[in-house]
């Protein structure tokens, strides 16, 4: 059997095995567990670190202020991380008598981790919410998340993340990726295997920071590091799929690449630092979820590169064929009953085609789950199509670039600075 087919079958088997496991866990979770009740018992501090976010900061603060939560139990801390634009002055407008719960701090630029730690240090709430300065939340998101903290073992709760009004192709592809995340995060939560919490909006028990330290200030992905640290200490990360937050994603190919390089480099480094999480001691996280994630990444890259090379060779062969008959484009439309009939047998007897259809159905099920939990009614079929066509290539491309950066020891930056 060709290497290509061996790889496809292997990847498919791992993919179906992991997916079956996730679906079974989620099914059993909903079968035995009651819906967690909303709660406003705990005092909450929302920390919004901001660096050059003048375009979105106002809307973010307003969104935090509009949360359906008792105001006497809510505190909003904006930390300006040495912005070069008007972020500070815009945020400052909210620190008046009209909004006594809003506090603003400013400091020299030192990175998101430093801003969050400053916020934690000055916070009074039992629960810390980290909120990106380009994120907006549904009003009921917070009280739904706080409900999970009734269980003392829970130290972190993640929400469902969505993309705020996706406009171009890059944003639309990310929208579907985020929808996939909604299903996976809930499924991972059902076996306490969440290893990434969205930095854009997550809730943490403040006690954890007091006992085990704050955010790692030198980490490329401080939210991922924290999630892995929580797992390494055997605490529980929950997920509240009905708590919905929307974020503004990178909107160009370049900014998206910069973000992914940072995420992936952060993932590699943090997984290496927390390699003790692999193995049976950490249950499903160490035995299924993390190994499946790593294997899928490696196999996907190999397969995509192989597929691209194979397709290029195929195109070359096709061109030779077409050239041999002095091909004219109009001939391509001369379909008849026999051609259609042969395609029917060819496609439907092709195992890889059937596996592909199966996977697309699973992905669609993820979307349906996500839309239902987020009560999201926008039409996304076209975006799903774009995702199916482009995401595999993009995913492999981002990873290959990240590996190149790692091999040649090049520095990965946080963001593209506006000149």
């Amino acid at each position, binding site marked *: 059997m060709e290497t290509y087919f061996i790889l496809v079958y292997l990847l498919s*088997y791992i993919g*179906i*095995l*992991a997916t*079956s*496991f996730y679906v*079974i*866990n989620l099914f*059993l979770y909903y079968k035995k567990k009651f819906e967690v009740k909303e709660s406003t018992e705990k005092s909450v501090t929302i920390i919004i670190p901001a660096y050059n976010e003048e375009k979105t900061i106002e809307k973010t603060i307003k969104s935090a202020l509009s949360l359906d939560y008792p105001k006497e139990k809510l505190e909003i801390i904006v930390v300006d991380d040495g912005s070069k634009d008007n972020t500070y002055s815009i945020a400052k407008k909210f620190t008046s008598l009209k909004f006594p719960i809003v506090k603003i701090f400013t400091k020299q630029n030192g990175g998101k981790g430093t801003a969050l730690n400053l916020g934690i240090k000055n916070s009074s709430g039992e629960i810390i919410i980290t909120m990106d300065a380009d994120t907006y939340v549904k009003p009921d998101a917070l009280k739904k998340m706080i409900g999970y903290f009734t269980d*003392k*073992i829970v130290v972190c709760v993640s929400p469902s993340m969505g993309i705020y009004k996706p406009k171009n192709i890059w944003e639309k592809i990310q929208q579907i990726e985020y929808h996939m995340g909604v299903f996976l995060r809930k499924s991972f939560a059902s*076996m*306490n295997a969440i290893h990434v919490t969205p930095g854009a909006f997550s809730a943490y028990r403040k006690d954890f920071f007091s006992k085990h330290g704050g955010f790692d200030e030198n980490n490329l992905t401080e939210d991922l590091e924290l999630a892995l640290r929580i797992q390494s*200490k*055997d*605490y*529980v990360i929950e997920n509240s799929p009905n708590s919905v937050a929307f974020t503004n994603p990178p909107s160009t190919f370049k900014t998206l690449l910069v973000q992914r390089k940072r995420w992936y480099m952060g993932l590699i480094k943090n997984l290496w630092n927390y390699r003790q999480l692999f193995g049976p*001691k*950490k*249950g*499903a*996280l160490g*035995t*299924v979820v993390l190994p499946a994630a790593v294997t899928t990444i490696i196999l996907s890259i190999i397969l995509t590169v192989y597929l691209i090379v194979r397709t290029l060779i195929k195109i070359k*062969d096709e061109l*030779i*064929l077409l*050239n*041999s*008959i*002095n091909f004219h484009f109009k*001939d391509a439309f*001369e379909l008849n009953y*026999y051609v259609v*009939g*042969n395609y029917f*047998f*060819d496609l*439907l*007897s*092709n*195992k890889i085609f*059937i*596996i592909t259809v*199966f996977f697309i159905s699973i992905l669609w099920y993820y979307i349906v789950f996500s839309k239902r939990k987020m009560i999201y009614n926008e039409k996304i079929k076209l975006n799903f199509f774009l995702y199916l066509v482009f995401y595999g290539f993009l995913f492999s491309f981002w990873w290959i670039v990240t590996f190149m950066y790692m091999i040649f020891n090049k520095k990965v930056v946080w963001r593209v600075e506006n000149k």
Partner: protein
Amino acid sequence: MKQKRDKYRGRLFLAFIMTNIIFIFIFLFSFSISYLNYQNINSQNNLIDEYLQDLSEDILKLNCENKFLLESSEKLDNVGARLSLLETRFGKKDSRVIEQKELYVRLEIKHFEIIKKIQNICGKNFTTILFFYSNDEVYEKESEIIGFILGTFKNKDPEKIMVYSFDYSSESEPVKLLKEKYGIKNIPIVIVNERDMIFIDSIDDLDYYN
């Protein structure tokens, strides 16, 4: 307060079972479609046989206008394409593939003989092409290109151009006889109108016969 890790092995085992069932289902589905293709080829072969029977009888009655001529030729081409698909799915050595290929070759030869008779009796002018190909790795690519060229050439005038393809490596007796008759030594090769033995790499090489 710290948690005890969930027992997941039972669920993982269930996932293994589910995955294996899904894989078996996928392979079975694919096999069923291939089997459907096999049955379709079988019925098409039988239909072609019936057409050719009618054609033979018509020729004997000196009836030169037969609607089955074009239809049988089209069906032959289609079955040829499906047979190569069946060969890919079931493998060359599969008894069902060998059986249908054998039947197909006989039908091709029968059709070829009828065409020759029509040429003689009815004075019609056909361009007949015998194509000896091979699926062996060394010749496969070249055979595929020539097959493609011949298919396109036939489509230029399907009522006049008749293409018959034979697997050089076939153990079939009629193919062996044909190879002997035309002295086939090198492949892939094309014999036009039983006279000209030519090697082609472009459709332009067939212009003369159009």
